[in-house]
């Protein structure tokens, strides 16, 4: 009877999780769907508490209370601009939970004098290995995104070789523990080595590549959950883990595609490090046309279609509210405003969409690259705010450029381009952007937020 109740609660939870994720295909249904998924979680937890192996509820109660105390501020008070590091940190938590459960399970079996089967030992090994790699990796990713650690790639000679050797060592330990689980030192060495390997894996990757890394680590932590499910013989862990793993996998593939780079290139290429030195064209002999807020405001005020291209610079300057205000001013004057969001704009998948939604930009004005790219030809102004590489025409026509082949937004097809930028420093990839030297482009230098405030003031006077 009890077992039926437990299985039933897991079944309900699985169905609600899948329906919740499915609801995310539609922004107007998503909220309700995810609330149902939360109810599913409640079922799963309640069902587990019925488990007859649980005899002592004191530590559980304490853990639940402490978890709520930590989780509430992480959910309610973290600002949207800090989302990428917040997501990375929660991946640390979920992977750590999986790894600790694995270690506890191993310790219990061994000290009780039992020898785990090869299957169970394999599952435990994978669980702990993937879990600890994710813990190390996501901690570094979160540190880089928060800029506690330099967001530049940290590289040294022979790094890939060292990492490969290290990984082979971990795999050997894993195989060894599966063959002979009584060799406890091998298991615990693997735990520590996996953690170190996670750090070494992410350290050489630059800030702009974090979307791929975080998505990939998301799929690792999902797989770690799956392995927990195999080790404990628990179906709901397997189901949720594979949903998680699939999501991370899909996102990392999408992100790599949007940068026209392979997984291996992202992980082992250390983009923005040495590659920057051999970047394509130089800016020698080219001149940039600088513009004042007044002239830019006139262009925007009389435009029929303005396409705004937000980038990481907008997030850094916290300019999303000013962008929305400017868009409303243009619309009030009869112009149309669309937002063109490149898949890798920002530091995580969908980063720009969330920031603009927070600033009350309706989601039907946010367009994906494929939807909007045809529209630039009839746009009067393309307004580039803190974006660089995603509008660099070199990706289309300069085969020597490191970003050659990456799909870009066709800002250069617009009748005129206004670029809001701090100064003439190159983009993250360290590549010159010929769009900035185009004769139809004017540069409005300064902090994005103050430039936008100036534009808003000027438009009122037009």
């Amino acid at each position, binding site marked *: 009877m009890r077992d039926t109740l437990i299985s039933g609660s897991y079944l309900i939870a699985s169905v609600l999780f899948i329906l919740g994720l499915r609801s995310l295909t539609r922004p107007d249904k998503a909220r309700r769907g*995810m609330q149902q998924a939360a109810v599913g979680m409640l079922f799963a937890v309640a069902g587990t508490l019925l488990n007859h192996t649980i005899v002592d509820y004191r*530590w559980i109660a304490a853990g639940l209370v402490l978890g709520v105390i930590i989780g509430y501020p992480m959910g309610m008070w973290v600002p949207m601009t800090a989302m990428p590091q917040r997501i990375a940190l929660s991946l640390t938590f979920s992977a750590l939970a999986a790894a600790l459960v694995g270690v506890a399970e191993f310790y219990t079996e061994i000290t009780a004098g039992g020898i785990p089967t090869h299957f169970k030992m394999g599952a435990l090994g994978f669980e702990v290995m993937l879990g600890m790699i994710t813990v190390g990796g996501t901690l570094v990713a979160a540190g880089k995104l928060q800029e506690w650690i330099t967001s530049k790639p940290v590289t040294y000679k022979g790094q890939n070789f060292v990492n490969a050797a290290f990984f082979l060592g971990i795999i050997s330990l894993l195989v060894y523990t599966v063959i002979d689980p009584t060799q406890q030192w091998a298991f615990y060495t693997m735990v520590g080595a996996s953690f170190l390997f996670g750090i070494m894996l992410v350290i050489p990757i630059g800030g702009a590549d974090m979307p791929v890394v975080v998505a990939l680590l998301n799929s690792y932590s999902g797989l770690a959950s799956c392995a927990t499910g195999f080790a404990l013989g628990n179906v709901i862990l397997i189901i949720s883990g594979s949903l998680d793993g699939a999501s991370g996998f899909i996102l990392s593939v999408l992100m790599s595609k949007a940068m026209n780079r392979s997984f291996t290139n992202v992980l082992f290429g250390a983009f923005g490090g040495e590659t920057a030195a051999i970047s394509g064209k130089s800016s020698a002999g080219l001149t940039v046309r600088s513009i004042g807020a007044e002239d830019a405001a006139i262009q925007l005020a009389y435009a029929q279609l303005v396409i705004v291209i937000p980038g990481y610079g907008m997030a850094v300057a916290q300019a999303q509210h000013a962008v929305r205000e400017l868009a409303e001013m243009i619309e009030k004057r009869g112009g149309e405003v669309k937002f063109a969001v490149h898949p890798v704009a920002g530091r995580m998948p969908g980063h720009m969409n969330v920031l603009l939604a927070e600033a009350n930009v309706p989601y039907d004005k946010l367009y994906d690259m494929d939807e909007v790219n045809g529209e630039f030809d009839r746009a009067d102004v393309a307004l580039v705010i803190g974006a660089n590489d995603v509008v660099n025409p070199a990706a289309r026509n300069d085969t020597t450029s490191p970003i050659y082949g990456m799909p870009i937004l066709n800002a250069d097809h617009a009748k005129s381009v206004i670029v809001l930028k701090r100064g003439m420093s190159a983009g993250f990839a360290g590549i010159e952007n010929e769009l900035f030297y185009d004769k139809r482009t004017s540069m409005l230098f300064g902090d994005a937020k103050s430039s936008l405030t100036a534009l808003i003031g000027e438009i009122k006077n037009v």
Partner: protein
Amino acid sequence: MELLELYVFVLAAFVGYMVISRVPPLLHTPLMAATNAISGISLVGSLIAAGSARNSVATILGFVAVVCATSNIIGGFLITDRMLRMFKSGSSGKGAAAVEKSGTH
């Protein structure tokens, strides 16, 4: 039993792939937050480790795992909801914004 688990794994991964590949880029950040919340399901394993009273090492590791997983569940579902609440369509945008200001907090 082990074969059955593999069965479940393959089918669930398949369903996950089908469902998630249809999520538009617009909602990719909420998707990541949502899968984070769902990954808090590792609480299931943590609860068993923390409550089975087998030995103190397992109990303490389980306790830490319960804290981690619970904070993911609570934080994850709350932040997903907070984000999804912000996505408004143009037609109902103003009304929804007004409701928010008048104090759903």
